[in-house]
Each structure stands twice: as C-alpha cells, then as structure tokens.
C-alpha cells in the first residue's frame, strides 16, 4: 500500500471507525460520506499533503473511494 493511501485511510477511518474504507467504492453514492465529512476530508488532506483540492476536482467521482482520493492527491502533487 502506498504511503498516500495509508494516510487517506487513516483520515477516513477517523471519520467513521465502522466503515471498510479499503474496499468501499460507493462512499458518495451510498451517502456514507456527507457534506460535513467532505469538508473534513478536504481540510485534512490539505494539512497532511500540502496540496489544495480545487473546487473543480471536488466531484463525486473523486470521493467515492479511498483509491480515488489517493489518485486525486497524487495527481495534485505532480502539478
């Protein structure tokens, strides 16, 4: 598992101790993450990775799974 992925998982796990974030791919579709959670995730990611998620990347596809979030962070780190 990549370091990025590990950090993302620990951010998510703090939000919901009872969710299997490693395998879930419907975090938005099944309303597991709500607007409060999204705000927290965005804030935590900017603290942990020193990247800012721009509004046009805050879309359901990028928040549906831990893997999608990790990919988003990695692509922002490259920019």
């Amino acid at each position, binding site marked *: 598992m990549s370091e990025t992925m590990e950090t993302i998982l620990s951010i998510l796990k703090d939000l919901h*101790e*009872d969710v299997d974030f490693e395998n879930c791919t419907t975090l938005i579709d099944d309303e597991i993450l709500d*607007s409060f959670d999204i705000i927290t995730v965005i804030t935590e990611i900017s603290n942990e990775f020193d990247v800012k998620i721009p*509004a046009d990347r*805050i879309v359901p596809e990028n928040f549906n799974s831990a893997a999608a979030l990790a990919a988003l962070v990695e692509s922002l780190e490259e920019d």
Partner: protein
Amino acid sequence: MQTNVLEYLEQTAPRCPDKIAFANDAEALTFAEVYCNARAIGTKLSQCGFFGEPIVVFMEKSPSAINAFFGVVYAGCYYVPLDVEMPAFRIERILEQLKPRAVICDAVTEPLLVQYGYADAVLRFDAIIKTTPDDAALQAIRNRQIDTDPIYIVFTSGSTGIPKGILACHRSVIDYIETLSETLDFSEETVFGNQAPLYFDACLKEMYPTLKFGATTYLVPKSCFSFPIKLVEYLNAHRINTICWVVSALTMISATGTFDTVKPEALHTIAFGSEVFPVKQFRIWKSVLPHAKFTNLYGPTEATGMSCYYHVNREFADTDAIPIGKPFRNTGILLLDAENRPVKDGEPGEICIRGTCLTMGYYGQPEKTAEVFVQNPLQTRYPELIYRTGDIGRYNEDGDLVFVSRKDYQIKHMGHRIELGEIEINCGLFDGVETVGCIYDNQKGKIVLFYTGAAEKPALAAYLKQRLPRYMQPNLIRKLDEMPHTPNGKLNRTALRAIYEEA
C-alpha cells in the same frame, strides 16, 4: 391584527395562486395547491377528532412536508417535524415523550413507523390531501384559536441525554417573521435557497416569509452541499437571490476556489448565523458579491428563531470576530453578571432575552423550563419572564453585542447546537465502555470523544450511529487507559484537551 400564521397564506394564495411557493428536484407546489392541501389536511385531522395536540410530521424533506405543517395548524394542532435521517433511537424517544395520537407520513416513512412500534393513527399525506375541505369546520376551529396557542415543537439536544422539545406559538412566530423580514428586506421577488433541515426552527426564515410575501423557496438538494460548484450552479439555475445558511456551507464554497469557476449570479442577500464566519472567508465572498447584503444572525431556539442581527458593513481584521450586533425590533437583551446584575460597559455577562419572541418552554418538562425561563431579576414587581441563553456576550466600543463563550458544555458544531453531555451519556451506555469524556476542538470544528474500557472503537462508532443524529457523531474517537479527573472527582476536560493537543 394578525393572530394566526395561516393568515399569511390566506392573503397570498388569492393574490398569486399559480406562483411556485415551495419546490425541490422532485415536486413544486403553487400557493393555490399549498392552500387547498393544507385545508384538506386540517379538515381530515379535525374529522378524526384531533385538536390542540401534537401531530407528528414524519416525511422526507419536501414541499409536501412543509405543506403538512400548515395542515396541522389548520386543525388547531401543533406540528412536530421528524426526519428520516434521525436515528431510530432518537425518534422512539421523541414519540415516547409526545405520545402523539397521529402521524402524517409518506411512502418512505410509513414502513418505518411500524418498526418504531408506533400504533396510533398513521395518515398518508397523499391520501389526506384528497379530503374535501370543510369551510365551516375550519372556520369553527379558527374561532377557537388564539395567538398564544402553540404551532410547533422542535427538538434540541439535552444534556441529560433526552432531547428537549421547544414549543412556540403563533404570536412569537409572527413577531419573528415581521422583524426578520424588515431586517433582511424580503419581498415578493425573494427566491430562497433553503439549506436548514425542517426539524429545526432555522427553516422558519424561509417558510413563513414565503407565505407572507408570495416569495419562492427552493429546497436545495443535500448532495449539493458536498460539491461546491454544483451548489453554485444550482443557485444560478433557479435564480436564487437569498440564502440563510450555516457558515460551513458558505466557507466550503469560498475556501475551495469555487468562484474561479462559477459565481452566484442572482444572489444579493446572505445571512449566516450561530457560528463564527472566519473573516478571511467572508472577504472572499464580499469581493465576489460587493453589493450583496451580508448579515450575521444570532439567537437560540428558545426565543423563536433569531434574536439579534449585524449587517456586516465595515472591514475586520483576520482575527476579529464579526459581532452579533443588536436585537431585532421588539426583542430585549439583558447582559447579567453572576449576581444577576447588569454588567458594566464592555464587561462580559450572560445573554438573556425578553419579549414576545420567548417560546413556551420545554414540552412536558416544567423543571427544565423553570431553570432557564425565569423571572426578570431586574424587575420584580410583576411577572415577566426572561430566557437565560447560557451564552456569554459583551458590548464592543460600537455598542454591538459580541459573542464570547458558553457557560456550560453546549457547543455549536456545523451550525448545530449540541450538549456534549448527551454524547457522553449515550456513549457510556455501550457495553464495555467504563468512562467517557468529550471535548470540542473549536479551531478544527471536531468533536473528540475519549473513553476507557474494553469496547472496540468500530463497534462503539456503529452503536453511536444508531443513537445519535449524524451531526452529533464524534469526529475522533480515542481510547485511553485512564480518564483524567480533577481532585474532586470530576471529569478533567482541560487534561483531555492537553492529551488531544499532544497527539
């Protein structure tokens, strides 16, 4: 003289019958429809023999749910909004407290009522709106109603673990709607974008001015509040010009650079409240909408909606807090010190409220009511109640009220008012939890829960989801070997804070 909130609807419906009053993605109701449906529901409830009692409206957030509220008022009853998103445990406690003889539901919530063991009258909204309105019966009910009769109960967090139902009457709501409307310049042109859930008094701001002016309210889909560009596009698509939102919804838009992609086109009135709007975020909003009116609102549910307002009309430093300003017309504010004396200029004191805005207290809880709805200590010659908010405030150099802190462990989290004690008590009931302590990280907006015992974190988190609403869920759960206590055996929250900050 207006004595009933329904007079707003009765004056507006004939004036603009075909205009949309309330809409969401799935349905839109015109004023004529709202009027007819409400009278049909009122007739049906009356035919069933209900009067002067709580009727629960347990429906998905929708124009129909709002319509059902007015129907309940037509029957001379008071509505109690419950929401599908509330955890079962909470709904059961509320039903236990109220023992309502009837619940209005929809297709989604009807099966849930059976699960919750509710056995009295279940009325489906889509069925009861087909009742033929009985004008004479409705008039007879109206003739019996007075403006100090209750119209709703909304539930708020209780420190003993049991939610408290706050009961408000026609007179208080009319007083609030009149002063709020003049303060924020609502009119027939107003198009509201509602964010607040219907089970809080926050939605009064949109619901009743819509009736009063013949304005329109769109219930913004919840999913929009997760995705800022979608949210602003929604505002633009419906030409929404007025929003009264929690601060977190506004900062999500500004902090993520949404305005680089899309700007609100019609928006001219932005009200926010109950929480500190970070000045840095406020400036971003102001720069994009330089001509818009920004207003900070403050007020407890116990005083019917909001009590104070501040039009933000000057510059603030990043570290300044935007004041809560002055009381609405016809609302009185007292700042009292620990000995119940008025504070000296600039000194902090407890914010106490007097006036028509005072609600009727906590339903079925006379002791709780008497603790905070008390005789005005500055005036003892005739009965006059004030409400003690538990908020500490002070006046600044401009004579504006500024929020300082809380007297107790009540917090404001994402616009919601929460008693940390309610979270602690519920957590303490879980098998394997021995001691519990909760703190709030104001800076990051996080509820942090500490516990000791054998319980596993995931199981505890799952348990709390069944018992507490989403907004009361801890953002962080930490297991400790030992809970810090003060020398006299009380929970040591300062020590907990230190443990949290070290980590």
